[in-house]
Structure formats: C-alpha cells, structure tokens
C-alpha cells in the first residue's frame, strides 16, 4: 500500500513535467496545425542558455527567466527564418525540416559542449515529505505542480478569454477568413511558436534537476512521452494534455516500480499504439475534413 502511494506520487510529479511539455505541443498545434518534431531540441538549446545564466549569476530564478526568453527567441527564429520557407501544402516537408533541425541543433550542442551530462541543482529540496510514514511529494514536486497548474490556467485564460487568443485560434482554423477579418495571421503563427517553445523550455528546465543532467539528448525521451500524451489527450485540448500527462506519468511510475524500468518504454509504446488504433486522430480529436 505504501509502495503504491509512493509510486503514485512519483508518477504525478513526473507526469506534470510531461504534461507541461505536451501543453507546448498543444499550443503549437492550436496556433499552426503542425506537430513540431524539433520541439525537444529547441528547448534543450534554451535550457543551455539558462544553464549558463544560472552558472554566471548563481540564481535559479534568473535561469528560469532566461529559459523562457531564450525559448521564445528560438521559437521566433525557427518560425521566421526556417519554417516560413517550407511549402505548407502537405505536412511532410515541415516534418522533414524539423527533423533536419533536430540533427543540426543536437550535433551543434554536441560539438560545443561535448557528450557529458551537466548536473543541475534544484531550487527546492528533493527530499519527499512523509505523510503517515509514507514518503510522498517533495517540495520540488510541489513547485512543479504549481508551475504546471499556473501555465495551464494562464493558457486557458489566454486562448479562451482574450482577443489575442481568439485571433490565434482563428488564424489556425481558417487563415484566409481571419485575414479577411483583419487578423495578422503570420504574426499569430509566430506568437504561437514563441509561446510553445517557451513552455517547452520550461518543461525541460524542470525535468533536468530530476534526471542525470543536461546534454544534447536530455529532451528526447520527454518528447516521445509528451507526444504520447498529446495524442492521448487530443492535440487540441490543454486539459486533455494535463490529464494525459498525469496518466502517462503514473503508468510509467507503476510499470517501473512493479515490473522493472526496462518495460516502461514498451508500456508507453503499447499505450500509444492502443490509443491510435482505437481513435487514429487521438481520443478528443475533432474530425478535420470529410472523406468519402
């Protein structure tokens, strides 16, 4: 029983980081109707900037701000100078360019910083509180929980409660009509990229202190998990991403705890396959176009 409570709590903490990254995939899907395969590599670049800032100023909080800003800058640069050049009639060229970007960024980081993992300290203790003799969440996990909830709330407010959010959703759904109605569609797409990359950088920054450390491939597995979550929850739904993230986090934690760490990637693959076979577009997906 104690074991289950501990595994559930660990799964919750891990799932929140995955959910946060999945949220960034949801944002970019809502803003531009694409799945960005380079999201993890872009976020890792921003986290390297944050790492440098933290090392210089000795402050985690300045590093966090730096990660957000650097993430937004990377998102801006990639959208403006790369994605705009790609023909957008089918999703295939965009995906291929994103994969090329992953290779360039990861190789670039590898050349600049080498293959070793750079450890990063968490701003709060990672020692879990004990409730009734059972170790549950640590202060750091609580911090991650608050950040994730804050981001979800903020995004819900942005997308559903502000004119800017309405314009972003409109330019993703019907670019031509939005343009006729006076929405600056390219600017909205750029904003979506910046927002999404910033949230992804935040997720990777929160993940790194709980893992081995920072290197070029720190975000790879997180991306696969978050993709699974985004598919599970539907690429259109922030709440779905949050719930899906917790489900996947708890699943990984339970499988690791009871069956061994080796089975966790297979469990994620099985879950993804199952969801995609039952609902090929994700569980909460809206049908995009009619087919014969």
């Amino acid at each position, binding site marked *: 029983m104690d074991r289950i409570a501990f595994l559930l709590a660990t799964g919750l903490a891990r799932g929140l980081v995955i959910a946060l990254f999945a949220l960034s995939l949801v944002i970019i899907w809502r803003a531009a109707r694409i799945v960005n395969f380079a999201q993890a590599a872009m976020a890792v670049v921003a986290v390297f900037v944050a790492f440098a800032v933290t090392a210089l100023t000795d402050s985690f909080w300045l590093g966090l701000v730096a990660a957000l800003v650097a993430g937004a800058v990377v998102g801006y640069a990639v959208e403006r100078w790369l994605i705009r050049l790609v023909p957008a009639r089918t999703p295939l*060229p965009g995906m291929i*360019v994103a*994969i090329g970007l992953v*290779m360039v960024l990861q190789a670039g980081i590898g050349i600049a910083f080498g*293959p070793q993992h750079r450890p990063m300290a968490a701003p709060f203790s990672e020692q879990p509180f004990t409730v009734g003799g059972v170790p549950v969440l640590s202060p750091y996990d609580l911090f991650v929980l608050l950040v994730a909830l804050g981001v979800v709330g903020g995004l819900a407010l942005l997308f559903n409660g502000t004119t800017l959010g309405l314009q972003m959703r409109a330019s993703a759904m019907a670019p031509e009509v939005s343009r006729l109605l006076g929405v600056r569609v390219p600017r909205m797409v750029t904003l979506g990229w910046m927002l999404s990359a910033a949230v992804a950088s935040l997720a990777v920054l929160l993940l790194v202190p709980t893992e081995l450390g920072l290197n070029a491939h720190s975000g790879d597995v997180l991306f696969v998990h978050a*993709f*699974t979550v985004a598919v599970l929850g539907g690429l259109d739904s922030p709440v779905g991403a949050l719930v899906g993230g917790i489900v996947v986090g708890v699943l990984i934690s339970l499988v690791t705890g009871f069956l061994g760490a080796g*089975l966790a990637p*297979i469990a994620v*693959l099985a879950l993804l396959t199952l969801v995609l076979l039952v609902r090929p577009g994700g569980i909460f997906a809206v049908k995009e176009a009619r087919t014969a």
Partner: protein
Amino acid sequence: MTTPAQRRRAVLVRSAVCTLLAVGATFVLDSYANYQLATIAAIFCATAGLTLLVGLTGQLSLGHAVLMAAGGYGYALTAAPLADAGVEGVLRILGGLLGALLLAGAVGGLLGLAGARLRGPYLAGLTLALVIALPAISTQVPALGGAQGVGVPFEGVPDALGGVVSIEQWHAWVAVLVAALAVTPLALVRSGRSGLRMRAVHDDETAARLAGISPARVKTGAFVAGALAAGLGGGVLAVVTQNVSPGAYDLAFSLLLLVAVVVGGLGSIGGAAVGAVLVVLLPWLIDTAVAAVGLPSELEQRLSGNVAVLVFGALLIAVTVVWPGGLSHALGDRIRSLTTRFRPSRTVPQQLTER
C-alpha cells in the same frame, strides 16, 4: 510514350547492368572499400523501400531502422540453428535471408496496418516511439540477447571460389546480389500499376477512393514491400558484421536512412542509391579529414560523429527548402535537357494527362 512491357524491360536491364558493374567493381576495390560497398548495398535495400513509402504514398516512417533490425534478428535466429544442424555456405545464407524476410515482413505488416489508419504526424510519432523502445524490447525478449545482441555464424568464401576472391569481396558479392533481388521488385512496383495507385492515394485519398482504389490496402502494401526490402538489408548487414544488436539500429541510424532518401530525391530509386552511398561515405570522409588535421584529442572526440550529423541535418533542410526533388531530380533535369538538345525532335502527341 512507353508501354508497360517496355518500362519493365528497361528496369530489368538497368538493374542487371548496375549489378554487373557493382560486382565488377569488387575486383578493383581494396578490402575495406569492399566492406563499405557491402554496407552501401545493405542500406540501399532499406532506402529503396523507404523512398517508395515516403515519396509515393507520403507516409513518413522514422522507424525504418527497426525493420532492418527485424531482418537482422530474423537472419540471426534462423542461421544459428541451421549452423547447428550442419547446413553451410550459400544454403545457410538463403535460409537466414528467408528468416529475415519473415520477421521483417511480419513487423512491417503490423506497422502497415497501423499506418493505413494514421495520418502524417501520428504515424511518424508511432514509429519514433518504436525506435526508442527497441533497446527495451531486445532486453525483454530473451532470444534477442539484450544490449550485446546476437552473434551471426561466420560465412566464409565457398570452396569453389577459394583463392580467387577475398572474404570481403565475397561478402560484397552477397550484398550486391541481395540488393539486386530486393530493389528490382521495388523498381517494378514503382514503374507499374501499383506505383500509379500509390501516387493517386498520396495526391488525393478521397479521389483515389472514388476511382475504386483502397487507400488502406495500398498503404499497407507499400509498408510491407518496404519492410521486406529493409529486412533483406538487415540480413545482409548481419552477414557482413556478424552481429545484430539494438545499438546499431538506433534513432540516429533511422534518421540517417531518412536523410538518404530525402537528399537523393523522394520517390526515386536512383536517388536512394545515391543517398545510401552518401550516408556511408560522407561520415567516413569527414572523420578521416578531421583525424588528418591533427586537432587536440578532446576536440576531435567532440567533432567525430557530430560533424557528419550536422552536415546531414543541414542537407536535409537545404534540400527540402531549395531542391524539393532532391539530387536525382536536380541532376536528372540537367542531363535530360542536355540529351534532348542533341536529339532530333519528335512530334509530341497531345497528352495532357501524362506527367
């Protein structure tokens, strides 16, 4: 205008000429170059299938390395019992390749069934998850031998050829012949009726369905055809390297296969061959060049491997943005414009539909 029979004959002649040229080249090349030729042939099997899959049906698979791995494991798991039973030489290779075909075909069939239901990013994500899970799968299934992988019985030069050809040359022959067997059917599919169906499904699924084509069947078929060829490639690689391990078939290798088909030109078999040559020779050339410069060892360690990935990533982006047809189209158009310049013009029939 060409008839289907003429096109078929042209494909067969072309593949026979290429095979003979490659076999002839093994006599000129030294042993390491022969080893590289064998690797290129093995990778060509996979890229030829992938180029059909991505270029003709528009299904992006990031997990083609897993299909090659399935072929390699299929080979190893069949060849080892055959070796215990005393079967030797060409017969054992053929038996192993049959195992490679069966396992890769089964995995490819399952993926194809999934692929028929999924659109672009979802299929790419699923195959990505599969590549990431491959090391875990190989650890969990005892027969696959975990991270060390499985050994493959050594294939020596047959007695009839002993003293005439070296061992690397013999392996290169096996690889080239298997590549010919794997790629020729794909080339026939591409130029034939099935290729037309694939293009139709890619261009407009609804229109294809109205014309009586089943997109699900076409997509699954393309996946299985690509998987069988990739499986043969994996089997050949197992013969050449005498080992199959998950480390050799990681995400980086999968992406390398994608680079090969995109840079060569999506949908073009010749492009797949050019791409296969590129992904084998370019990293080797870069590493040789880096080693020749004589940098400090720490820097050299960082550069080795990474520079090639950097170049490949940049190529992937540049080709997609600047040259969407890839090298084969860019060069092919040049050559075609040269040949038409010196050829007497014929009266062109009014065929608006022929592209």
